[in-house]
C-alpha cells in the first residue's frame, strides 16, 4: 500500500506535480501494482547476487582523445529559454 503522504513525497522526489484527481487514482493504481510486485517476497533469494549488468564487456573505457564539441548555436537551438549564450532558468536561489 502507498498512502497519500508517501505518494506526495515520491512525486516531490520525481519533481512531478499531481492534480487532486491524479493523486487519488494514482495512489490506488500504484498500490495494486506494488501489491502484485510484492509477490517476489515469496521467492527465497538468500545468497543470490543481484544482476545489475547483463553480459561481460571487457574494454568499456574510452581513450582520452578530444572529439569535436557541438557549435554553441546547435547546443542552444532546442532550449526553451536562452540568455547571454546560456540556458535560462528560474534561479534555484530565488525560492
Amino acid at each position, binding site marked *: 500500500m502507498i498512502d497519500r503522504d508517501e505518494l506526495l513525497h*515520491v512525486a516531490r522526489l*520525481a519533481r512531478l506535480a499531481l492534480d487532486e484527481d491524479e493523486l487519488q487514482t494514482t495512489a490506488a493504481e500504484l498500490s495494486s501494482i506494488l501489491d502484485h510486485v510484492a509477490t*517476489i517476497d515469496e*521467492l527465497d*533469494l538468500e545468497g543470490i547476487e*543481484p*544482476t*545489475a549488468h547483463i553480459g561481460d564487456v571487457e574494454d568499456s573505457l574510452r581513450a582520452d582523445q578530444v572529439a569535436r564539441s557541438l557549435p554553441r548555436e546547435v547546443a542552444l537551438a532546442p532550449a*526553451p529559454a536562452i540568455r547571454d549564450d546560456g540556458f535560462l532558468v528560474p534561479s534555484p536561489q530565488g*525560492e
Partner: protein
Amino acid sequence: MADDIQALSAAAAAAAIADGGLARAELFEHYRARAAADELNAFTWVAEDEPTVINGPLGGVPLAVKDLFCTEGIPSQAGSKILERYCPPYTATAVANLAAAGAPLLGKTNQDEFAMGSSNENSAYGPVLNPWDRSRVPGGSSGGSAAAVAAGLAPWALGTDTGGSIRQPASLCGIVGLKPTYGAVSRYGMIAFASSLDSAGPLTRDVTDAALFYRNLVGRDSADATSVAFPGPIDLPTSERLDGITLAVPTALVDGEGIEAGVRESFEASLETARELGATIVGCEIPSAPYALSAYYVIAPAEASSNLARFDGVRYGLRTEASTLDAMYTQTRHDGFGAEVKRRILIGTYALSSGYYDAYYGRAQRVRTVVSRELAEIFTKADFIATPTSPTVAFRLGERTADPLAMYLSDLFTIPMSLAGTPAISIPSGLSEGLPVGLQICGPAFSENRILDAAHALERAIGFDGAAARSGGV
C-alpha cells in the same frame, strides 16, 4: 506495377534493384506515398524526398524507424508531448549503421510514450490502429513500426524491445520481430526507457528480411559502453528442417490462465509442425517466470525514473514557465508526461527511495539472476525455448487502458528473455478468429543465427500469409 512492388519482401526488393529490374527511386516513392497516406496513424513523420542513399547491401530499401531513435534534424519525439517537435543534433548509431548499409530513412513511426506500453495507446500522438482490424491495437510499444510493416506502408522497420516491445506488436500484427542479445546492437541515440533492458531490432515481413536487416545492424559501438561485438557474421537463413533440434516448452507457463484458446491452439499446431520438421519437443519449467514480471515492473520503472529525469524543461523540449525553479520542473513534467509514464516514474522513484531499495530494486535484481540461471539451465538441455509470444491476439482499443496491471500481463512470455538479455524472435504462427498469433523462439546469448535458421524452417512450413493486411492501411 505498384502491386508487384508491394508484394516484394525487402530482400526481394533489394535483389530486384541490384539486378536492374526495379528503380530505387521508384521503390522509395512507392513506400513514401503509402506512408504519407497512412490511415493507421503509424507514422509521426514521413520523408518528403528520398535522402542521399549509400550503395550497400540493403540495396536502397527504405526504412521506417521508431520515433525514439534520434535522427539528426528530424523530429524524434519518443511518442511524448515533452519532446514535441524536438529535432536532435545527431543520429542514433543503429539508424546510421542501416543508412550506411543502404537503407534510407522513410519515416518515423508512432510508439507508446518512451516505449512504455503494450498497445500503443500511450502515445501523445494518438493510438495506432491494427491493419488486421482497425478497432484493435497493434500492440506496443513499437506499434507504429509493426503496423507500418504489416500494412505494407514500409518494407521493414526498426523497433526497440525492453520487455517485449518488438515481439508482442510483431505477434499482434502478423509479422516477424527479433529482439537481439543485449548489447549486440548499439543503444547510442536510442531515447532510453530502461537502459539495462533496451534492445534495438528489426520488424520485418519475413525471417530472411530480419536476418538481412540484423546483419547490418549489429556491431560494437565505442559510444555505447555496454555494446559488444557480435561473435562472427549474421548469416542469411537457409534451413528447411529442424532435425536434431530440441524445443523446450515451459509447460506450467503456457498452460496457465489468461492464455486464449485460439492462441493455445495455434501454438500447439506450431509445435506439431516443428515435430514434423524433425524437432524434439520437451517440457521445461521456468519457476521464476511469474516473479520475472514483478521484477521487470520494478527494474524498468526504476531505471526509467532516472532516465526521464533529464526532461526538466531546461535544455530542450517542453517547458511550462513558472516563477520558481521547482514550479517550472514539476509543472513541465506534469504537462509533458502522459499517465502511464507518470505512473512508472512514481513506481520507479518509490522502488529506489530510501527504505525501499532493498525490498524492491535489490530483490528484483536478485530475481533477475534467478531468471538468467533458469534459462541457462534449460539451454543445457534444449536448443530453444518456445512459447506463444503473447497470451492473446490483438485486443480492442480501450479494452485494457483502465487496468494497468492487466496490460502488464501481456508481457508474461516475453519478459524472462528481456531480464536474461537473451535473444528471441516472434514469427506468425497462424490466425485466430482472423487475427494473427505469434510464436516466440528464444535461445542463449548470441544464438541469433540458429534462431533465425529455426524460424526460417518453421516459417516455410507454417506458410503464413500476411497479404490480407497489406492491402489495407491507406
